[in-house]
């Protein structure tokens, strides 16, 4: 009986990994006070960059590097527009998504219909992978999956246990205070935005060369937006991002699982589960406005003009 849950858990974890990556990057950006709604666009750009890299013989290392670099670069465009040119972050984030969707649809057309020549394969850890339930899911991931867990822990550590993390959080709470303390507000925000872009790119890489092993227009199918919701759900705490991602991943996996065992529900209804779950979770979390107010970076989404 327990064995029958293995594929469900494994696919929940597999669906959770890219969400964790993207949400972690967004979390760091938001903790510095920058709301980047362009996750979906950055993920698509990362996904295409990764696919192009493997398609041209760059290998998996090339895919990871290309995805992170492409994600970070496009994020810096967003950074320039919002941080230097003081544009509205909501509008700029949306335009980043529109731009990313367009660029990838345009440049990616010649790559549609091919299988990735290289992809991340599962690497079960000896012994650990034989633990019931946890083994086949948590200890039989691919390299990107393990790297995600390391990044999760590292992000939490940097944010809460280092000077740099403290500075970043301070800037997100009050850039004015941070500046009077001599902290470089705008450069740190640039760095946080670039980190967010690199992580979103990595999440895209996961879709293109680990999960689907191909490129297709709109490959990320709204998961960038789900990752954004995840940050709110996690009340801007890295470790809760991990838990939340498992929850969302579980819902997606449940849809696939029910399809596989031929439940008489339309596949379209099952496919809509992650989106509906996101709404339910958002409603649930926003019912406690105090928790949001307590945890949200106080300067989130507000422009900061260094010369003023």
């Amino acid at each position, binding site marked *: 009986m327990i064995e029958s849950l293995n594929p469900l858990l494994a696919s929940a974890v597999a669906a959770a990994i890219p969400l964790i990556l993207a949400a972690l990057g967004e979390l760091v950006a938001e903790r510095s006070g920058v709301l980047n*709604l362009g996750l979906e666009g950055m993920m698509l750009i990362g996904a295409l960059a990764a696919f192009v890299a493997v398609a041209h013989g760059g290998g998996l290392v090339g895919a990871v590097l290309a995805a992170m670099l492409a994600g970070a670069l496009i994020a810096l*465009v967003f950074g*320039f*527009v919002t941080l*230097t*040119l*003081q*544009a*509205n972050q*909501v*509008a*700029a984030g*949306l*335009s*980043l998504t*529109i*731009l*990313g*969707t*367009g*660029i990838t*649809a*345009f440049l990616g*057309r010649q790559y549609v219909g091919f299988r990735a020549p290289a992809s991340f394969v599962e690497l079960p850890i000896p012994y650990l992978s034989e633990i019931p339930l946890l083994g086949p899911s948590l200890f039989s991931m691919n390299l990107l999956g393990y790297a995600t867990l390391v990044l999760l822990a590292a992000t939490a550590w940097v944010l809460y246990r280092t000077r*740099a993390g403290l*500075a970043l959080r301070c800037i997100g709470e009050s850039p004015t205070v941070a*500046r009077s303390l*001599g*902290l*470089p507000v*705008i*450069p*740190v925000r*640039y760095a946080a935005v670039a980190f967010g872009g690199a992580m979103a790119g990595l999440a895209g890489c996961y879709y293109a060369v680990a999960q689907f092993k191909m490129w297709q*227009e709109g490959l990320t*199918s*709204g998961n960038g*937006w*789900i990752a*954004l*919701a995840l940050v*709110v759900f996690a009340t801007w705490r890295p470790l809760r991002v991990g838990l939340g991602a498992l929850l969302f991943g579980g819902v997606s996996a449940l849809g696939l699982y029910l399809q596989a065992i031929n439940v008489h529900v*339309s596949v*379209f*209804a099952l*496919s*809509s589960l992650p*989106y*509906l779950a*996101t*709404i339910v979770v*958002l*409603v649930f979390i*926003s*019912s406690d*406005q105090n928790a949001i107010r307590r945890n949200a970076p106080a300067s989130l989404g507000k422009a900061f*003009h*260094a*010369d*003023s």
Partner: protein
Amino acid sequence: MSLQLPFRLIPRAQPSQRMLVVAPLLAVVLTLLVGLGIFAALGQNPLTAFRVFFIDPVSDIQGWSELLLKASPLCLIALGLAIGFRANIWNIGAEGQMYLGGIFATGLAIHFHETGGAWLLPAMIIAAAVGGALWAAITAALRAHLRTNEILVSLMLTYVADLLVKYLVYGPWQDPQSNNFPFTIQFGDDALFPLLASWSWLGFDTLLEGTRVNLSILMTLVAVPLAWLFMDRSFIGFQLSVAGLAPPAARYAGFSEKRLVWVALLLSGAAAGLAGVSEVAGPIGQLNDRWTPGYGFTAIIVASLGRLHVVGIVFAALLMALLYLGGEAAQIALQLPKAISQVFQGLLLMFLLGCDVLVNYRVERRRAALPVVQPVAAA
């Protein structure tokens, strides 16, 4: 590492009225320049590409008809969105609300396919507005009463609406003769907007012969002055603007935020629903699984580019429609992927946001001699 820019931004005492107009034009010019660069990089003669993209599509009456067909729904949706955007109520799910408009209208068209009459099309129009508004009402209720983020909810609902369309056209509403292709039956004449060319008493019939432009543009023509009255001449329109520009002032004045959220979302949902019926009962004449070229998202750009003002939105909708047509023409004439129009759309919005800095700031060259005290960035 130093992040000194060669210029500095000096806040203006008041937003520059001149720059409010100059910035969008500058953004269009910058987009064009980058566009020419892209064409050159793709090995196309930039000038030929420019002509194919921007001139040829509107060089005959056929082209203008197509331009209106595309600009009309874009304008309709953008007018609705602008109402909310003015109050910082970000309805990003117009695409989904448009799907629901299409679904509601299609439901009537299919159900009364045999028995319809002259009442059918008006009924479909009302149903479409109701459908779009109902879908937006979910977002409105959650935002107004539970303070749930409207951006994420409206967007998630767009993905759900897309799946709902797919469910219908692959399932209960599929044309039995479609060989399992995902579309419904072709609507009867009672369920279609009449072509302008078919109205011979207008005197345009020879001019418009063979064009597809239809009566649905009347909805937009009516909506434009109504939207202006609502946004710039009504009390609630004023409340929305205040809520966007100075939220504390709006609270102090006792404007109900809940009411504004409901009004903005219901109106934009209804407008998107109308755009939906203008498509399914217009050039397409049926519901299928990929009937919209993303009007709901493009309308966000239209609203921003048009400065959330009625006149600006009309021009922006025409420009964006031209980008769609140009993309299609470039695909046929230059074998470039159609998605190039989306690239231009994204660039245009990004440039616009960047250029907007000129509205609130004066740009001043930094003099090199002047020592500037600036904390050094952590590497």
